[in-house]
């Protein structure tokens, strides 16, 4: 290695490590505080690893002060239900828009493009009124139903299906397959990469969503993970930092672990859905 390339490599790592410190600092503080006893949290001297570990105390306190397991289960149930229903609704529509000639196709696709521009928060008020009148507020349905239609999913899958060769579809028709079974038996297997990207996008979005759950539910038996941490902080009056950071760690951990296990897939999925 020449002196010059050594210097530039050292500079590169210094700058990147500084940025990494910025990115990771909150995670380090969160985990470090979650294993500290109260007196060390309130001390002026900064210590990343506590003198006396309080892992068990803080994490038991977190689990007993709030039904964190229930919140996590709610998170799993809600995100899984949303994604499952999205696939069920999205794939046939995306296939029709990509491969079938039918009356109103251009109009339908134009509508999809138009709706892509509108963030869902913009229709939260009427959605809330709608659910209020049909008596569905404060239920799992309120958390799931509005997201069963994903124009973004339809757009993404339609773009992917455009690239699937027509021969594949024609061959399936020759074999006597119905259009619906072409969707599930021919297009679905071909679309696994795009579907994975959509899945990553959908799960990350809805696991972390705070706005809609905050609006839609009020009983804590329906709380999703972000609502759960917030309720925990409000109940503890924000002073019991050890257990609070333990609760935050527990809520953030599942998705981050998944991400660390399959980071390539996650990053590519998000980049893929981001670029569209």
């Amino acid at each position: 290695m020449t002196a010059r390339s050594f210097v530039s490599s050292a500079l590169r790592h210094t700058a990147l490590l500084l940025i990494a410190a910025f990115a990771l600092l909150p995670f380090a503080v969160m985990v470090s505080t979650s294993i500290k006893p109260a007196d060390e949290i309130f001390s002026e001297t900064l210590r990343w690893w506590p003198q006396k570990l309080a892992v068990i105390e803080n994490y038991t306190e977190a689990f007993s002060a709030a039904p964190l397991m229930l919140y996590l289960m709610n998170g799993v149930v809600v995100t899984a239900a949303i994604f499952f229903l999205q696939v069920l609704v999205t794939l046939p529509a995306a296939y029709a828009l990509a491969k079938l000639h039918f009356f109103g196709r251009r109009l339908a696709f134009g509508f999809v493009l138009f709706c892509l521009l509108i963030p869902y928060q913009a229709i939260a008020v009427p959605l809330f009124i709608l659910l209020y009148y049909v008596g569905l507020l404060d239920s799992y349905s309120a958390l799931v139903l509005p997201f069963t239609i994903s124009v973004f999913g339809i757009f993404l899958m339609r773009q992917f299906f455009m690239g699937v060769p027509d021969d594949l579809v024609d061959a399936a028709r020759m074999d006597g397959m119905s259009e619906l079974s072409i969707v599930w038996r021919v297009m679905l297997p071909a679309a696994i990469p795009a579907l994975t990207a959509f899945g990553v996008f959908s799960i990350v979005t809805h696991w972390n969503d705070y706005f809609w759950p905050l609006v839609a539910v009020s009983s804590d038996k329906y709380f999703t993970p972000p609502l759960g941490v917030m309720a925990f902080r409000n109940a503890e009056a924000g002073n019991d930092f050890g257990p609070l950071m333990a609760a935050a760690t527990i809520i953030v951990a599942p998705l981050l672990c998944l991400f660390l296990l399959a980071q390539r897939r996650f990053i590519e999925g998000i980049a893929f859905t981001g670029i569209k």
Partner: protein
Amino acid sequence: MSLSASQNRAGLALIAPASILAIIFLIAPLSSILVLAFTDYQLGDRSLRFIGFENFQALIDDPVFWKSLSNTLIYSAVVVPGSMLLGLVSALLIDAGTSLRSFYRTAFFMPVMASLLAMAIVWEFMLHPSFGIVNTTAKALGFASHNWLKDGDIALYVLAVIGIWQSFGFNMVLFMAGLSAIPRDLYDAAELDGTPHAWERFKLITWPLLAPVAVFVAITSAIRSFQVFDTVHALTQGGPNKATEVLLYTIYAEGFEFFRSSHAAAITIVFILLVVSVSLLRFVSLKKNGEGA
């Protein structure tokens, strides 16, 4: 039966479920926003009355609305360039070498993945006036400490820093995708032509070829920053004294805390116009690039 007739039937059948759900959960709500904004409806009312532009007139006279709109724009004006620059620098630095690439990429992307609400609570703890890590470090280094979230002069910018922290990794990934599409031999050619400086090469090759990606990143970042809500709701509730009041928070408070649905609908229309006009900039820039080529 002809092929086209059967295709027509199949197509309509396959989009039927999506269409029905779209009518219930997108078209109806979107149209009712437009209607609501011109009425006096409040949640629970049995009837409503059309009042023309009164809701909008009320907005124009309402200093909180103007504060909310300008805070949203100031927040975006900090977060968009901040998260773009940090994202671009990260992407260029990672791309410039071969070691530890995936470590950095993963580290920078972690804030994008983590629940912003949970991390906002961690930030609140870090910014705690007496024993938060930010103030204890500032004191140790001889700087003044602040009550970061309670000081109206800085609270909005503190939230913007959290916004940059959360989103720069996302921009980095988009920039890296853009960089990987630039042919390597362009750089070799530039080196042969006597453009040895990294900065010159960046100006000559990277930036012009990355410009379309940068436009896209800017627009996406702007739209995401208009939607800032979680940190505001969790950390400041729009305070102190409306210093961090932003559009989505105002809509939330009007629509779901005071149940003044029609007033919330009027602000929502402003919010939609803001988002849609920035989205449309993308088509303008695409058209311009198309004409230039």
